[in-house]
């Protein structure tokens, strides 16, 4: 990949607020066309990182490059669509006027902006609401309007801070579809979330941060391969005998999650699943299912950024 393809590049950025370190020596790179998930628990520093990208706050140390340029988000506002974490719109304004204004603020010509606003409103089923005041809209509709405001000027890069938070499943799905569509059309998308299921479905690249530091970064498939270890799902014909069978192989297993119907076993480093199968059969277990499974992002996230990982914050990088 060439430098030209680097859309967002953070180099060792650090941000201190009185009394605590919000972001610490964070580096990351987002390539053109990526759907990049910035993952982390609440308070990890996701929003601060995004605000530094957007030129809203300035890092104490390190540099931010957007489109290969150090001048920061404001100079590229026409190329970036930004959705802040906390939502809000001018309550007293009419829907179309508000959309037109926000597009104009990013440098779109007025007539053009109004036409595009109409198209998008029509597309998301809000065509009849264009001349209504925003305060008359339901919360779901207001969120849709805000998404339109983020995308109206057809940005090359979308930066969405917790876009799925507070959405009902229908709107969550609608937004996911839009993200996928835009991504296919070539838009680079970076979003933060703490909802791993969404990230797992949409992202092709993830970066997990915790307590202001990066703990993991890489292509999703690669992250799963490297950090997931070997996971096996097992189910027994005789449900009662399962626990005993698992206990008999405990020397091979790092962690066992018994879900009742089946159990997911994380094998210790270097253990071959074939060995596990042999040992289980030798212990007399009657297997109904034995399958190598991918670890969920949820699992990896908990391992890397969860409360158990409190002390383990040294950065690890998986390269695709």
């Amino acid at each position, binding site marked *: 990949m060439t430098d030209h393809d680097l859309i967002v590049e953070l180099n060792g950025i650090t941000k201190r607020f009185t009394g605590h370190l919000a972001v610490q020596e964070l580096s990351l790179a987002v390539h053109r066309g990526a759907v990049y998930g910035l993952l982390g628990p609440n308070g990890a520093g996701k929003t601060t990182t995004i*605000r530094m990208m*957007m*030129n*809203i*706050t300035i890092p104490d140390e390190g540099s931010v490059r957007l489109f290969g340029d150090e001048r920061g*988000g*404001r100079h590229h*506002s026409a190329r*970036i669509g*930004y959705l*802040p*974490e*906390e*939502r*809000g*719109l*001018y*309550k*007293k*304004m009419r829907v179309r*006027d508000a959309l037109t*204004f*926000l597009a*104009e*603020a*990013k*440098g779109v010509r*007025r007539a053009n902006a109004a036409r595009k606003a109409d198209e998008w409103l029509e597309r998301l089923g809000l065509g009849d609401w264009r001349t209504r005041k925003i305060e008359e809209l339901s919360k779901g509709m207001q969120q849709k309007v805000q998404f339109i*405001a983020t995308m109206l000027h057809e940005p090359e890069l979308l930066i969405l801070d917790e876009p799925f938070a507070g959405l009902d499943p229908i709107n969550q799905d609608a937004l996911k579809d839009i993200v996928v569509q835009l991504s296919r059309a070539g838009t680079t998308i970076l979003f933060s979330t703490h909802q791993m299921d969404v990230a797992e479905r949409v992202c092709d690249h993830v970066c997990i941060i915790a307590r202001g530091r990066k703990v993991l970064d890489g292509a999703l498939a690669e992250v799963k391969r490297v950090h997931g270890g070997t996971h096996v799902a097992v189910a027994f014909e005789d449900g009662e005998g399962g626990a005993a069978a698992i206990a008999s192989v405990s020397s091979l297993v790092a962690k066992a999650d018994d879900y009742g119907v089946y159990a997911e076993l994380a094998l210790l480093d270097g253990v071959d699943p074939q060995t596990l199968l042999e040992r289980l059969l030798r212990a007399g277990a009657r297997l109904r299912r034995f399958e190598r499974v991918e670890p969920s992002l949820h699992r990896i996230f908990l391992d890397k950024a969860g409360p158990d990982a409190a002390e383990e914050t040294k950065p690890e990088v998986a390269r695709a």
Partner: protein
Amino acid sequence: MRKVWAVIRREFIERVRTKWFLISTILGPVFMIVVTVLPALLTTKTGRVNSVVLVDEGSATLAERLRTQLGRTGRFDVTLVATDPERAGAVTDSLTAQVQIQGIDGFLAVSGATLESGSVEYRGRNVSSIRDMAVLDRALRQALLIERLTRRGIDPALVQEAQGRIDLKTLRITKRGATGETGEATFFLAYVIGLVMYMVITLYSVNVMRSVLEEKQTRIIEVLVSSMKPFQLMLGKVVGVGGVGLFQFGIWASAGYALVHYKTAILGIFKVPADQVASIQLPAVGAGLVGVAAAYFLLGYLLYSALFAVVGASVNADSEAQQAQQPVMMLLIASLLVLFPVLNDPGGRLAVVASLVPFSAPIIMPIRVAASEVPPAELAGSLAILGATMMFVVWGSARVYRIGILMYGKRPSMKELLRWARQS
């Protein structure tokens, strides 16, 4: 520049569209017409005529003279009842009953002793009508005076002549000569201008504060400052809201101009007869005064809106804004406190100082210009100080605003605000 223009446009259009703007814009001219028409309508003789009984308890010619005087006022319809002192009590009782059943409005009695004592009692239902009582008082004085002089042998015609109406007219003189304006009209004009300046500056500056706070509360500010510089946003906001102010000011000024120049036609609509209209004193509002008022509105508004923008940027909620705006409001209210002293002595030391202090100048200087002649040097000095202060305050405010709009949580102290202003 297109971004700033978008902000100006939004602030302007969204405000002009509100009901509040429509109502206040219409109310301005309505208020002007009311204050001109009302006195005219009041002086037309539509007032009720009071029917009173004048009891003559042997006053010789005094009662008759008083009746003539009261009759001339046009406000009293007098019935003369002659009685003797012995029956006076019974007459009083029956007249009191008459007043109670609303047969008459009131009664008064004069006797031979009245001429000496000069004391007369009026008993009636409505004794609080200042106007009627003043008329009664004047008629009584006149009747007594004439009667006393006549009895000393002075020719009643001579007395009548000496009684000729005396009127003190106060006329304002400027460098260009007498203006034909009365003192009352000038005072009133200056007073109204002072109040209007105070109101529009407060109103529109507070509007800027609300607008800043709305963007902060809804976090639209994050989207906006990632698209344009905070200063561009603040500039657009202040210019847009100020534009609404000037627009409204312009409408009011045109309405005032129309009222002065077409007063006969306009007041005719309200059935004010033409000869009445001619007697209505409208203060002459020259182009100079309008220009001064517009300039001070603009500079004063810029000064205060910058301060209010800082208030809006440094708080998180409306309730906090109420409190945080107090220091700035105090500056404005202080100007109102000196309003009357300045009106009474528009060339005095207090007036001169208050019109040089940049925080009170926008309200006080237009008052002085309306009420008296202000030396050009003072006007220029006041404008220069105000302009320089305004630019300094806008500069500092923009710096504080830039940081404040993105700060949430604890309200910054005055010290922190100053630190933000110095911070590069």
